[in-house]
């Protein structure tokens, strides 16, 4: 870590004098890097410590948590807190539910959104600007403005007791931003590329699937990731349409979990949070590679 820092700091050094380094120069270099190091250390502590704090507290008994400083290590490492949390927190169900509502929505958003973005940016037709503006308006419409009529409608349809309302609302509410972002990305690609694709008899639809969508792979990943945590971390819709215990998402489940224990059972509560955090961490590390790859590829292109 320090080695890499060293080399980068040297390479980014703003001095362009191809002379020998005097010791004074070297000292100045080190000094110049101190603020950056302090900042980085601060960032790491502020981000990671609360999570670490939560982890050590998830292994404490109640009396331990209440009577000793919370930054101390547990007197007895109570791993059974995790078993208790898994049992009482209904975690298996809530994690499954979060996935059931998130992934289909993501898939729909990406496919519908990029197709619409392509149609609005690459193709030419009357009223194009109007439709794009209509989608744009959707970015700012708060979900509060749509939940009540939808609640009513889904209730009449008798589907309030399923995953459908959540999936439909997540998909629709994710579209505006996605269409807008995809249109922006397509703007960067010369139309000639698509036109050239159609010369050998392919239609614009083919051009989209054969060239447009693959070309946009990194953009799609970025969009999908943005939408992923918007949906994954939604509470409003999950609360309204997933209040039933077997429809609870992670968010709603945790909310109820905290209620069940109030202040009394800290260990299992922290354990439940840790479980959801670790799950997300694994997923995140896997996705993160993709994010960074996507951004790096974008940078190379740029």
């Amino acid at each position, binding site marked *: 870590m320090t080695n890499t820092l060293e080399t980068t700091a040297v390479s980014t050094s703003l001095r362009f004098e191809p002379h020998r380094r005097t010791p004074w120069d070297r000292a100045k270099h080190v000094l110049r890097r101190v603020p950056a190091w302090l900042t980085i250390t601060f960032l790491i502590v502020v981000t990671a410590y609360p999570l670490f704090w939560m982890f050590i507290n998830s292994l404490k008994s109640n009396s331990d948590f209440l009577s000793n400083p919370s930054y101390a290590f547990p007197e007895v490492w109570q791993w059974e807190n995790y078993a208790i949390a898994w049992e009482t927190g*209904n975690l298996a169900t809530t994690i499954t539910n979060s996935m059931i509502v998130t992934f289909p929505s993501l898939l729909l958003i990406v496919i519908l959104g990029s197709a619409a973005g392509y149609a609005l940016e690459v193709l030419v037709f009357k009223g194009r600007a109007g439709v794009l503006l209509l989608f744009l308006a959707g970015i700012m419409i708060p979900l509060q403005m749509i939940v009540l009529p*939808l*609640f*009513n*409608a*889904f*209730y*009449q*349809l*008798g*589907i*309030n*007791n*399923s995953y*459908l309302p959540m*999936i*439909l609302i997540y998909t629709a509410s994710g579209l505006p931003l996605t269409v807008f972002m995809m249109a922006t990305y397509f703007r960067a690609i010369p139309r000639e590329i698509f036109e050239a694709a159609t010369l050998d008899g392919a239609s614009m639809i083919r051009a989209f699937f054969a060239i447009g969508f693959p070309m946009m792979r990194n953009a799609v990943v970025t969009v999908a990731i943005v939408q992923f945590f918007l949906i994954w971390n939604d509470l409003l819709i999950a609360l*309204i*349409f997933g*209040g*039933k*215990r077997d*429809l609870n998402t992670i968010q709603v489940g945790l*909310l*109820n979990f*905290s*209620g*069940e*224990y*109030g*202040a*009394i059972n800290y260990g299992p509560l922290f354990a439940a949070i840790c479980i959801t955090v670790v799950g997300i961490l694994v997923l995140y590390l896997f996705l993160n590679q993709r994010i960074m790859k996507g951004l790096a590829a974008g940078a190379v292109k740029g």
Partner: protein
Amino acid sequence: MFTAERRRLRKPMLATAALVGTGALVLTGCAGGGGSAGSDPDALEFLKNAENTTTEPVLRALADSVCSDQEAAMPLEVNSIPQAELDAQVQLLATQDGLPPMFSAGGNPAEGAKLWDAGYLLDFDEALTDLGVRDKVAEGAVSTIEKLYGGAFNFLPFQYNIEGIFYNTAMFEENGWAVPETWDDLVALADDVEAAGYTPFAASGEQGWPLTRLVSGYLFRSLGPDALQKVADGEAKLTDPEYIEGAAAIADLGAAGYFGDNVTSLDYDAATNEFLTGNAAMIYMGSWLLGNINSDANQIGADSVGFMKFPAVSGGAGSIDEYPSNVGLPATFGANTYTDGVADWLGCIVENYGNEALQQGQITGFIADEPADLPAISQTVADEIATATDSVLWFEALFNAKASNISSTNAALLVTGQITPEEFMTLVQDALDEG
């Protein structure tokens, strides 16, 4: 499980249908009407408020013993959600046809009555008569339920509580404090307690209602048992000076620091703990606290807990013998999920609940006909219940949902001086006027 599987397969079709349906609905713009009947439950799911910790142990004990056949056929599953969210949640579940077979409801009795009017609740008069266990419920409890919930026997009295002040007898003896008879004595006592280095009153400001209970307690003593009925009928307003006096009396306790530090963020469990670990001398609470008092969490010992009536206000119209009484936040059964299996459970619960609860040191609205060896404090409270001449309700009992919510969310601000008694009462009265 099977229905869920099937439903998943039909999803794509349903989605299309839903979209088309939404469109059609929008065109017709219809409203009202009810959902389809719920599917038959395969477990006895019981949705309760998290703050209720006494009902589940009794039900579990029943499931392990006399109701084991029912448990084998339909396992008992208990879920808890915070009381503050319960009414909203039940409303939502009702409209989604997702009410479990058994659930707690009506933190605001007005909301409970609404559910009854909409036909979501079981009529226990009829159901228990059919099951032959109607005589297992105490008439006093039934009349309290009818008084609160729209005139019908539509909730079950898993708790039947009187409220008063529990105090630490060991601490009182040690310091030579006497049990106060009047409000002024109580304030003087609180001052002595604080001087001795203890917190006079443990109360959860996070919940709020433990504080507003004191306001209503004061009002019932100063203005008489019909004080809040008058407000509900519009004959008096909370903003009248004699009502504001009640809020001011409690605000003064807070201003003097008698609720300790951090009353605002103290949650219910933590407040109970303050008392049961000997940090606080007194806690105003209902007899449901007996469950905690007789449990292992009690570090001062059940023998060190005494129970006193809410003191009289000098020159007031109310009597010290009028106990606030309630059926807790009662549970009920859904009308749409009342299958034979559920009925079987209901019969078994009503038949045996009273005795089992008494064994666990709780007092309920069910008849208990087996003598139990009660701890002294439980005996005291049971005797008080038996000899009480009259009962009153609590502060928010007759309020609408909004006034109730505003009352409990602002109570902590009242006792920490962040809002004045006038402001507090105005906020609540405004919400009442809206409804």
